[in-house]
């Protein structure tokens, strides 16, 4: 088999009734690549996320994961293949502790099922202990280990966002989709986040697809950026190319504005 990209979005269109949310979008992501997806509000970025993660099925076109079609499969099956996301509006498991939020995401790696939980034999205990320590280890990387037993809702906003990333990492994804991870963070937190995303990309060998409004974060991290406007891809290239692209500048700022983003 020749090397196919990790993820390939091929000519995908989504319509909601008469509204075309995403139109003939094509995008490829290679293993371990950091790709940014930007665009003004309502450009279809989150819809693109929902397509890749199986929340919506494309009206036309197809999505391939390592060359195999995955469009139209249930989100849990797609997550099992290694595509895992965070959410723009935080969606933690609200009544669970910080640690349990992470442990819940170990489901894909769980070996003992229903009967194991009832038997409670040695293997069960070993697996529980392993999950406990691995979850704590992940929290440690993000400096959240001291909050492990707090209710997740009691965390400050920025930490809740980071906890979402921890939770996603717990599934051992190969492609991590981050939906506006910097939203609501202050400048210091954003710098930290930038470092963190680079760090986890290296440490876990992930490909990352990042939707973000903060240009500094995107330009800083991404090797390649795709720009959406009204559901269409209007540009794709390195941060340098995107920065200078007149269509992108027009989409974001209108005409005749110096591009110092």
């Amino acid at each position, binding site marked *: 088999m020749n090397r196919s990209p990790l993820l390939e979005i091929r000519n995908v269109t989504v319509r909601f009734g008469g509204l075309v949310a995403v139109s003939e979008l094509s995008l490829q992501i290679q293993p371990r690549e950091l790709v940014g997806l930007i665009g003004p509000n309502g450009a279809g970025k989150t819809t693109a996320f929902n397509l890749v*993660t199986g*929340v919506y099925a494309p009206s036309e076109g197809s999505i391939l994961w390592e060359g195999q079609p995955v469009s139209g499969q*249930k*989100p*849990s099956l797609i*997550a*099992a293949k290694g595509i*895992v*996301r965070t*959410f723009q509006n935080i*969606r*933690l*498991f*609200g*009544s*669970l*502790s910080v640690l*349990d939020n992470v*442990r*819940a*995401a*170990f*489901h*894909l790696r*769980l070996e*003992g*099922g*229903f009967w*194991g*939980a*009832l038997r*409670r034999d040695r293997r*069960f205990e070993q*697996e*529980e202990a392993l*999950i406990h320590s691995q979850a704590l280890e992940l929290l440690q990387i993000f400096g959240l280990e*001291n909050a*492990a*037993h707090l*209710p997740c809702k009691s965390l400050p906003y920025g930490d809740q966002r980071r906890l979402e990333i921890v*939770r*996603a990492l*717990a*599934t051992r994804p190969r492609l991590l989709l981050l939906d506006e991870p910097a939203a609501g963070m202050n400048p210091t937190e954003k710098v930290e986040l930038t470092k963190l995303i680079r760090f986890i990309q290296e440490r876990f060998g992930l490909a990352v697809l990042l939707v973000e409004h903060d240009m500094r974060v995107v330009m800083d991290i991404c090797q390649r950026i795709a720009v959406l406007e009204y559901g269409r891809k209007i540009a794709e290239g390195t941060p340098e190319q995107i920065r200078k692209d007149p269509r992108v500048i027009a989409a974001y700022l209108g005409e005749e504005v110096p591009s110092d983003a």
Partner: protein
Amino acid sequence: MRPRLFLLLSLVAASTVSFLFTGHSANHWPLAQIDPYALNILVLMGINILLAVSLNLVNGHAGQFSLGHAGFMAIGAYSSSFLTLSLQKHPALATLPFRDPLLFAAALLLAGLLAALAGLAVGIPSLRLRGDYLAIVTLGFGEIIRVVIQNAEALGGARGLTGIPPLTSLGWTFAMAALAIYTVGSLVQSSFGRGFLAVRDDEIAAEAMGIPTTRYKVLAFVLGAFFAGIAGALYAHFIGFIAPEGFNFLKSVDIVVMVIIGGMGSTAGVTIAAALLTLLNELLRQTEQYRMIVFALLLIVMMILRPQGLLGDLSRWFPKRKDRS
């Protein structure tokens, strides 16, 4: 307490109890002279605990609001009674050693399995529904079961079934309640069972983390129904008489009240609430017509003062010491 230890201890306790206090045979053992009225209340308590703990898995842990628990109970009650009524006089079984316990065990198993099958049948189509809509569908299901039984001549129609052999003992009830508490308790304290809580808290996020939400919801329904069916069988073989009216919507509401007062998702709280409400029910027997008023008031007061239920989330009361840093 470690769940496995709990199961072991309760089973030992249950068999001891059933040996000492056999409810129905006039007994040779001095301890057996327990007040029959108290014995009755204890058995009813056990049955209610079984019902409340199993409903709590569906409503509390998995977050799927079901109002049809009495329907599953009816399936268990009728199927088990049908079995014991048709087999108890069967000549082939007359000489079988331990005939009654074996027959009853088979009846309980049949009751649980048939109810679980019904749970599967309701669970799958109801999965596209949430909240109020799901509640209405399950309510409708419970009523359909009742009406079907009411019109089935083979099951005695509206008159019900009588002469059901009194096979339920305190020991059986205890053992079954312990089994339900163990099952639900150890499930939700495992990584596998954490899936139920994730589905309850945020279905979309759960699905995105690879948790098969559909399977968890169906499993909750099936398990909940299984134990409700067993509770129905225990009830039928305790009272000796069942009629469709006993499994109406109000019965389902009774169980929901126990779950809400005990605290959604708290097995210990729900167990205590089921026991307390059984007692309260007995205290109010003289003033039966005001019972629902008292229950309603109790619910309202709970909603205002302790919406999380009697115990609420126990883990917040007793944080594990080694975890605090």
